[in-house]
């Protein structure tokens, strides 16, 4: 196949720009393998000398906590949030997308407004509420709200998707004697899988990256998530231990990258159909 020079030059421009965009990430990864002394003297992306010592030192942890425990903590929280969002947002989305009930339009409008609401307006009373419940320094403040579908954005995403599913399926299921709960569970949920997966991957990545929530609610290092662990590194080691910090930073990106590369299709679909801000 013949490629016109015009197209070829466009490919080159886009590719060059893309590599330019990726440079910081590549720099992070490459630096994490450089011996401490070379991180800021050797600017090339291909390290002149390669070492794993940054990873060994970083993984050993800080403040008496191994870095692996930050990872485990983050995973526990992220998975609890994913399960909560997928289940409770889909329940609400089924009602909005499929059922007919009084005040539906008003409730739907309320839900849309909560998407736009800056969460700082509620953060202080929420903090005080959790304090009264003795939930500070536990994972409840970070996970329970997801089990009550506070990420209304995902309800909206699923409603959009569920509305597009053919209604004939529900009707024939009704004739077969299915109730609404069975229709939700056996028919709509399996068909809405792309929307559920989109919700799951974005919930995972946003929870994984969540710094503000963890900063507010977690005090003990052994409960810290990965973002707090990184910050701990940054604060207490000063400029001397950039190697381990960069190594753990690079490592912290791995779960998101794995999910991204294995679910690309859903990312693009999810963003372009619903406008997830990313």
């Amino acid at each position: 196949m013949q490629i016109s020079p015009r197209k070829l030059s466009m490919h080159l421009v886009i590719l060059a720009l893309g590599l330019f965009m990726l440079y910081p990430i590549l720099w992070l990864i490459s630096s994490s393998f450089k011996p401490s002394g070379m991180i800021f003297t050797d600017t090339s992306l291909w390290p002149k000398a390669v070492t794993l010592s940054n990873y060994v030192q970083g993984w050993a942890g800080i403040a008496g906590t191994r870095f692996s425990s930050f990872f485990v903590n983050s995973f526990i929280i992220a998975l609890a949030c994913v399960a909560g969002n997928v289940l409770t947002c889909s329940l609400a989305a089924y009602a909005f997308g499929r059922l007919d009930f009084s005040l539906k339009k008003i409730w739907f409008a309320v839900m849309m407004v909560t998407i736009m609401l800056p969460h700082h307006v509620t953060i202080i009373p929420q903090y005080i509420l959790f304090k009264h419940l003795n939930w500070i320094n536990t994972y409840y403040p970070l996970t329970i709200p997801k089990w009550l579908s506070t990420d209304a954005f995902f309800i909206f995403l699923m409603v959009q998707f569920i509305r597009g599913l053919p209604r004939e399926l529900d009707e024939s299921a009704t004739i077969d004697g299915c109730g609404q709960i069975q229709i939700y569970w056996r028919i709509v949920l399996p068909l809405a899988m792309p929307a559920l997966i989109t919700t799951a991957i974005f919930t995972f990545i946003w929870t994984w990256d969540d710094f503000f929530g963890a900063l507010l609610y977690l005090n003990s290092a052994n409960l810290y998530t990965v973002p707090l662990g990184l910050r701990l590194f940054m604060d207490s080691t000063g400029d001397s231990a950039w190697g381990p910090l960069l190594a753990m930073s690079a490592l912290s990106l791995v779960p998101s990258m794995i999910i991204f590369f294995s679910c690309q299709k859903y990312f693009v679909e999810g963003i372009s159909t619903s406008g997830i801000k990313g």
Partner: protein
Amino acid sequence: MERNGTAVLVRDSGSFSHTLKKLWRRNRVAYLFLLPWFAGLLVFTIGPMMTSFYYSLTRFDLMTPPRYIGLQNYLTMFTADPRYIASLKVTITYVLVSVPLKLTIALLIAALMNRGLRGLAFYRTLYYLPTLLGGSVAIAVMWRKIFGNSGVLNQFLADAFGIQAPNWVADPSYALYSIVALSVWQFGSSMIIFLAGLKQIPQDYYEASQVDGARKLRQFFSITLPLLSPVIFFNLVIQLIGSFQSFTQAFIISGGQGGPMDSTLFYTLYLYMKGFGFYEMGYASAMAWVLLVIIGVFTAIIFGTSKYWVHYGDGGK
């Protein structure tokens, strides 16, 4: 099992309890499905909003009960707190610079990509990766190091052009712009939304205008932009609301203090410091309400002006 169809047809006697019963039968399933959301709405949104509004009218240090002081917090903010004014300036500058820049770049790259190139999926991935990872502490750490005094950027500038560049993140006149750069770098999701919008534009329009002798640039301004305006509108609103709430990047890059010289004292960072550093919960709540109003005003301006610049295909609805 629902038997709504017949139930509705039965003429009721008009008694109140009968109506209630009918309402209950008609709605119970839906409201059951909505139960978790209702609980969340009440406990985590409506309740806190009302409480937060009340707190904003009090002095509240978390140790002693809130004390009502009327509009004092709001007054202090605008008349006696220069750091507050600084945070407002920083945030509005950040939004006004980063959002248009980000959207312009996203649109240009999307337009460049939407030319029937092969390997589009690969390029989309490449450009989306920074957005995907951008919210993480790791990226903020990296940014701080790249833009730092002995960072890669400055070494590059020195080696390639012999320029003695400033310490971007530590210089009050540049620190904010290193965070702007971080935000602009994450144009990926806006770009994907633009791409999806561009694909909706019928090719006939371009062909017809070509017959009329329109050049590419003219086509861009008279076909692409107007037809894309609903998507531009959407991206603008989303990015605006998000940008006003930026926190992590500012926190990490400024070392949690909004420095140097408050030049990166983002609104949310100052709110966090007031609330959870100095325990001035009333003041922080008042700040949150002003933020809500500011975002509301900006959004209202965009909505209000939209009829002049947003064109819907069906002639406006």
